[in-house]
């Protein structure tokens, strides 16, 4: 956990004072709604369908327990006693009153938190692999770099009014758990043959209306040059990104227009001017930041705890949970644990103040007082002794956080959708719940195996439906809420975008349709090791289409049905 120094603290305090004054002027009528909008957005405040929504930054997903307790307190005092963890590792409050927001920001500042640049056309919260620092497949620990980027992007004077929002994600492992390929900039920390750290830089990925996998434009930016290289990208984008059409304003459109190679050349030309300048990072700065991180003091333990092994053998329910929700750790005898926020009947990603406090207690007792938010909208205890896993599981059960579905069909990613969001075409939470109810037999869920199901309430794609193995998108059909289903999307190193299956369907039809897709998969898979996504890749969309839309399909489909009859 990064600990603020005096200047970090002063800056967030000054931000609170600034926003307090802006809010006062707005409420007094001397600042118009139009002028106030970008100011409140850069402090995370939206005006939503029913109330304002405040998005609180959780930089690269790291939280200390005192911070989680403060969030619980804020949710209880200024909201309705719960919060929503989003796919960008932020926490959203759905019902704060506008006039209380300065006070909420002041409470956040007391625990070294803020809502800076969580919205608006600026550099947003930096996201990272939620296993950063603990993953066995890690090449470079990205946390220090994430904090360097947090500081660099905070109040960057040149890039506060970009053509559109700008998202940066960082990964330092072999597997990509930060979805870097669908970010405006994706950074993969790597080492060269000499062991020096550098970054593979990808630009122009994104979801939304025009989903696209980004392109790598530099295979190795040595770490001292990270900030100047990013400034070169941002400057080219700030100057030439489209501002005439909101839907074409993301950097991905510019990269496409210029071609990745053309864009890279422009960045290189700009970089040539600023490379080696004062923004060049120094090893003493990197060390200074690294030293301000508290790190767990691990005990030296056996690689495999015998009590853990015994418990696995004794209790099959525990073993099932452990198989899904316990993750390997680079330190012998330790593990990471996902506390699921995907219990059926609870909107995905939602947690009550009581749950937050209880999770804080768990993290204090078993995980060095820290935890993480994952982009799959769950909470993670990252540094747990294997020998404590059984106790943690028991306590998580009591808290409703032990749903053993990580990586499974019911671990649904969903945006707040039409229940809260004014941009929505359709609701997402009831759809998630209907699917979870349909797949409530956990043995059946395990049989289906690994499957990502993601739901967005509109094209803005906050629920990342494009990269779900099954993606569900809310669409508007003559004023009615409909759902368009796509399959074949994936996140990670082999990222791909889902393809639309066919005509959209009503809310009632969604669970049946999903079940039909699953049936096709179960019939066609060659072994249990072949996942849903693998089958889609192998056999393509047609067999799924035929089964779902049967009679409406061409002669090929009919021929097969006849043959089967």
């Amino acid at each position, binding site marked *: 956990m990064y600990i603020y120094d005096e*200047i970090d603290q*002063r*800056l967030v305090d*000054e*931000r609170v004072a*600034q926003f307090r004054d*802006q809010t006062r*002027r707005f409420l007094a009528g*001397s*600042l118009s709604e139009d*002028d106030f909008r*970008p*100011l409140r957005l850069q402090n995370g405040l939206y005006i939503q369908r029913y109330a304002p929504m405040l998005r609180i930054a959780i930089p690269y997903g790291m939280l200390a327990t005192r911070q989680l307790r403060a969030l619980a307190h804020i949710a209880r005092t200024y909201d309705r006693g719960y919060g929503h963890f989003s796919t960008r590792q932020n926490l959203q409050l759905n019902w704060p009153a506008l006039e209380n927001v300065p006070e909420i920001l002041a409470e956040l500042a007391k625990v070294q938190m803020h809502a800076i640049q969580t919205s608006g*056309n600026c550099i947003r919260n930096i996201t990272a692999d939620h296993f950063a620092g603990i993953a066995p497949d890690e090449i470079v620990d990205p946390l220090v770099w994430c904090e360097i980027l947090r*500081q*660099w992007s*905070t*109040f*960057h*004077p*040149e*890039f*506060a*009014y*970009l*053509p559109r929002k700008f998202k940066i994600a960082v990964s330092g492992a072999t597997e990509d758990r930060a979805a870097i390929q669908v970010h405006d900039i994706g950074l993969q920390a790597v080492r060269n043959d000499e062991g020096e750290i550098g970054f593979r830089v990808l630009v122009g990925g994104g979801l939304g209306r025009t989903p696209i996998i980004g392109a790598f434009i530099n295979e190795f930016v040595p770490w001292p040059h990270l900030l100047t290289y990013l400034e070169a990208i941002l*400057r080219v984008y*700030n*100057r030439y990104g489209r*501002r005439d059409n909101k839907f074409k304003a993301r950097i991905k459109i510019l990269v496409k227009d210029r071609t990745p190679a053309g864009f890279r050349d422009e960045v290189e030309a700009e970089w040539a*001017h600023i490379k080696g*300048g*004062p*923004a060049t*990072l*120094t090893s*003493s*700065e990197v060390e*200074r930041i690294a030293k301000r991180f508290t790190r767990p003091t691990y005990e030296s333990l056996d690689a495999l705890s015998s009590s853990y092994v015994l418990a696995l053998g004794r209790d099959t329910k525990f073993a099932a949970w452990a198989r899904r929700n316990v993750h390997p750790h680079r330190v012998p005898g330790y593990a990471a644990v996902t506390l699921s926020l995907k219990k059926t009947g609870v909107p995905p990603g939602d947690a009550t103040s009581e749950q937050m406090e209880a999770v804080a207690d768990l993290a204090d007792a078993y995980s060095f007082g820290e935890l993480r938010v994952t982009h799959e909208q769950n909470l993670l205890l990252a540094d747990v002794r294997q020998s404590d896993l059984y106790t943690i599981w028991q306590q998580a059960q009591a808290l409703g956080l032990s749903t053993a579905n990580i990586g499974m069909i019911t671990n649904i990613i969903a945006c707040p959708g039409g229940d809260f969001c004014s941009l929505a075409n359709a609701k997402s939470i009831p759809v998630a719940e209907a699917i979870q109810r349909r797949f409530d037999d956990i043995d059946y869920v395990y049989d289906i195996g690994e499957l990502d199901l993601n739901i967005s309430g509109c094209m803005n794609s906050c629920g990342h439906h494009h990269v779900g193995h099954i993606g569900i998108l809310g669409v508007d059909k003559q004023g009615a809420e409909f759902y368009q289903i796509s399959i074949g999307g994936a996140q990670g190193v082999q990222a791909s975008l889902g393809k639309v299956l066919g005509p959209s369907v009503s809310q009632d039809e969604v669970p049946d349709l999903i079940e039909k897709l699953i049936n096709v998969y179960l019939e066609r898979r060659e072994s249990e090791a072949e996942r849903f996504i693998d089958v889609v890749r192998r056999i393509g969309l047609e067999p799924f289409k035929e089964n779902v839309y049967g009679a409406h399909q061409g002669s090929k489909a009919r021929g097969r049905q006849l043959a089967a009859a």
Partner: protein
Amino acid sequence: MALIKDRKLAADNWQLLEAAADGAALAIPDSGDVLVSLPEWKASREWLLSRSGRVGVWLTGADEPADIASDLAHFALIAIRFANFADGRGYSIARLLRERYGWRGELRAVGDVQRDQLYYLARCGFDAFALREGEDPQVALTAFNDFSEAYQTSVDRPNPLFRRRESAGTL
């Protein structure tokens, strides 16, 4: 319309000239200080330099600062016009003029310029601000004190915070 210069209210003797929407030729007065657009500067350069009165150029967000890099010595003022405060191109142009092309004279933000943009504008190298109609200049003057520190390199503090910490020995 109030002008803030070097963090004080200042008198403004400049006339910003803009071609009429109907495309009629721009009437440039014989004397007095005038600010002209980049196309006007290119078209009327000789006349602008021969008349009495100083000349400055105003750029839009779409203009290339490189186009005036070799003309800087002729200007007494450069302005960047913000058609809309959400259009952030002028921030990059300002830094380029200051940091790459070495403009040391007055750099003025004009157009949709309001109190809550001033702090970042100043960091990008603007030292003068023609506030849009209706802005309270006294309130605007407080904007420069919104923050006491900044992490990044900028025109007003060329060294980023980490280098200033290092040279101050406060690591």
